[in-house]
């Protein structure tokens, strides 16, 4: 799916995610912008990152 197909989280200077979630994403080299958020008001949770890590890598869109 193209990036447009992903639900993007609430994102100002930083994603709406707690330090623990940001750390988990960082530790696993994940850009939080690409993780579909499930929390209130677009909050990306630690569980969202864990789900994202377990899901198969997204197929790159055809160039």
């Amino acid at each position, binding site marked *: 799916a193209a990036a447009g197909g992903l639900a993007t989280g609430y994102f100002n200077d930083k994603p709406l995610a*707690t*330090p*623990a979630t940001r*750390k988990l994403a960082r530790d696993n080299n994940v850009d939080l912008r690409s993780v579909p958020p499930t929390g209130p008001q677009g909050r990306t949770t*630690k569980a969202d990152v864990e789900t994202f890590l377990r899901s198969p890598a997204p197929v790159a869109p055809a160039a």
Partner: protein
Amino acid sequence: MATAERFDAIVIGGGPAGYTGAIRLAQLGQRTLCVEKEDLGGVCLNWGCIPSKALIDTAHMNHKLKDLEAVGLVGMGAPRVEVAKLQAWKNSIVKKLVSGVGSLLKSNGASTVFGTARITGPNSVSVALREGGEKQYEAKAIVIATGSSTIGLPSLPFDGRTIVGAREAVSLDAIPKRLLVLGGGVIGLELGSMYQNFGAQVTVVEALPQLLTGVDKDCVAVAQRSLAKRGMTILVNHKAMGHERTKTGIAVKVVDDKGVASTIEVDVVLVAIGMAPNSKGLGLETVGITPDAKGFIATNEVGRTNVPSIYAVGDVSGAPLLAHKAFKEAVVTAEVIAGHRSAKDWKTIPAAVFTDPEIAYAGLTEEEAVRKGREVKVGRMPFAASGRAMAMRETEGFVKTVMDKSTHEILGVHIVGPRASDMISEAALGIEMGAFAEDIALTIHPHPTLGEAMMISSEHALGQATDILNR
């Protein structure tokens, strides 16, 4: 019935639960009546939370004066406690806050009537007015917020001067030389610790094997050691059996769990064995509400009783008997009556014990967490390692963080030490927001503050503290 005045909601009681509920109802456009039989503000403002804390803070200062010589503030001499002045000041605070409640009710548009309310039907209340006469009211919803009252002991009947409850104990006209406190719960220990800091010789008698049952044992141990160090005699597993007047005071007979009896002579006895809900004489039977064995009124997650139009909030609806629980319950019920979808969905009701040192906690104790099947890991930061605590000369105690061993979710935080009551807010917010230990550990806490101890305690649980050894 034709003469009954109509409201959207009637709130019975003007304490923390009652006035908060009435204010919120009025804010949300409900025509609201608040009925109070004594003084607005209830126990909390008139002889509970606020008056006790005013005295406790002053007593704490009185104690802190003792070590000022050591840090270079010399030549002062010990102060005399002029109780009349102390009381006048305390009363001025109470007056200001109680009159503040009155104006808040008014400016938010709630009506107030002084008198004793009785429920006469699912939608009707009769009030025996303080100024005389009886008045009838009707409303779509009735909120019972009648609070709780001191429990007495038949073997030690209150006389208002030498055998007293908390209500009289915060209105002392002298500091007793020797004080016996019956009950090692929050109220007994707070007031006992306060009198001790004012110079009284204090004995605490508790029937159970532990003080402050339910509170983290390590926290209690630190507070208990500190109180004892200052001269308090603490007798657990002891019960008061009766008393005798002597020439020099009151001799109270106590018996331990092995049946061994002894006598303690004191000047004043404070009975602080608990509070009972005010659910009698309210007319509950006429609408079919039956309080439980202890007198508490059962409610659901929005505060509704078994009668759909009648709600109960605050102390009368059950434990914990705390003002901040009363506030939030009242807001939820008010919003629900006004048609909102509120609910009592909090994760934790934190608590503070204003002994010296203070204890405060939010969430689960280690034991509770284990009982719930959690595998836990505990972090701890002693105030003895805190530069700020050293600067304040209050290094007793610690912050203890209980986290889930695998997820690192913060399950509970337990603090004993300086300003514990103020520090616990952060833990409460963390627990409500589902914080992991990393969240608290990675949040920058300003230096040098007591708040850093919260952070370091989380770091310690994670095994990555740099300010203390990771066990």
